[in-house]
């Protein structure tokens, strides 16, 4: 099993969700996060006081899938989240040792 973590632009969340649903992903976890990469922050001005906002709002998606589906999921996220502009985000893939569905006690692939 693989844990796929994607950091994407917030307004791309629905596109990514649709793309993943289409290829049969049954569930995912979403968090509102902040961070920085190559994309610069922006300046805010309040009555002449300037503040640089370095941490930009992003969405972090986490989805765990069987090994054989990982590539397709990565591709689907990458396609759906891409704008071609700086700040589109990143995708990380990590090996997962074990999974358990709390309600039924099913494990690993059955729990996904």
């Amino acid at each position, binding site marked *: 099993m693989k844990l796929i973590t994607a950091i994407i632009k917030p307004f791309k969340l629905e596109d990514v969700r649709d793309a993943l649903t289409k290829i049969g992903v049954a569930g995912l976890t979403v968090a509102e996060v902040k961070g920085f990469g190559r994309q610069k922050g922006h300046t805010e001005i309040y009555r002449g*006081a300037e503040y640089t906002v370095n941490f930009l709002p992003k969405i972090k998606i986490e989805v765990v899938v069987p090994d054989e589906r990982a590539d397709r999921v990565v591709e689907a996220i990458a396609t759906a989240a891409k704008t071609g502009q700086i700040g589109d985000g990143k995708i990380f893939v990590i090996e997962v040792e074990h999974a358990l569905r709390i309600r039924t006690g099913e494990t690993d692939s059955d729990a996904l």
Partner: protein
Amino acid sequence: MPKAGHDEMKQASGGLAMNLSSLRFFSASAVLLAATPAIAEPASKIDAGDTAWMIAATALVLMMTIPGLALFYAGMVRKKNVLATMAQSVAAVCIVSILWALLGYTLAFSGDAPALGNLERALLHGIGMDTVSPLAKTIPESLFMIYQMTFAIITVALVSGAVADRMRFSAFVLFSILWLFIVYVPLAHWVWGGGFLQTLGLLDFAGGTVVHINAGVAGLVAALVLGKRRGYGTENLAPYDLSMAVIGTGMLWVGWFGFNGGSALGAGSRASMAIVATHLAASAGALTWMLLEWKDRNKPSVLGIISGAIAGLGTITPASGFVLPWHGIVIGIVAGGACYWACTRLKLWLGYDDSLDVFGVHGVGGFLGVTLTGVFATAAVSIDASTPNGFPGLIDGNPRQVLIQLAGAAVTIAWSGIGTLVILKLVGAVTALRVTPEAEQIGLDVTLHGESIHS
């Protein structure tokens, strides 16, 4: 405001003991009136229309503080200080209301001695169902008293914006009590209660001196005495939620119809003219600030638009009721430009940290408004039975009025500045004015009030 001697009703009721119920008071008065034809004709008639409007205006002005100013100020501070900022406005309402009824009203509005009122209305003594103030002859005195109370409330609450994010609540409570009596009450008497500035001929329809210059200068002094916020100029002090400030601005703006329109103390053309000038000044002020910022910074900020509106409203305050509607537009434009400059340039040059720009908006706007009242006062607007010639200013052939206005502003600046400094030194000798650096970092909501916003 017209001056007059005590009316017959007040003389008739003067000898009555304080513990009489209002019903007994009423019948006693009626007996006296019937028995003594010399005073049978009441010098005053409570007018239903005037009373209805002034009750509404009183509610509007109270709404300006809670929740108007509370939202306006709290929206501009950081999330950790939102509740503490609101607490100052709510506390100002409660503290000032009680003290105003006990002593504030009588010291400001009873008698016409040059320096201070008398104690005739202490604890609201003698205010019954039929009494009227010589300063507002067509509405119940109880209504005049509570209308003026709402002005004292918002002036105290306005000052709190300058020390937001760092003043201790206990110190603010003590400050409010002393400042009301030492600074506000004498000024209100001098300008509106028959004191020496009114005698001098100062024109201040709704509080350019008493409310706006006064709060602005007090705010500046308080900001200087308390010192800058931690992280001022280095950390991000951006507002938590400007949408709250927009809602607050809307309430202040609508409430200002009661503030300026109600200062006519009756329902009529003058109240209406004051409201028109007020509304136009707010709009012109908002647009001016917006355009200047758009030009300077490439973006018209929401905070800029609402700041300009408040600047226009504060600046038109003394002039409304003396000027024509189009003067309101001119005054609003001047207000938007000058207050924008004060908040974005002057403050940085002088290096003080007036958190929410009480001085930049109300102090600067108040001074401009008081001065421009002397320029634009148009006699035709202020003609009534007690002032058959009205009050002319520079454009109406009376250049001397500008000098009187400047004198009134100077007295207000000096009294407010010195009084505020002395009071802060007194309070500071009893208790710390400012929270500890640790508490400031954690936030005032948790450290002062034991609460926080969870969202």
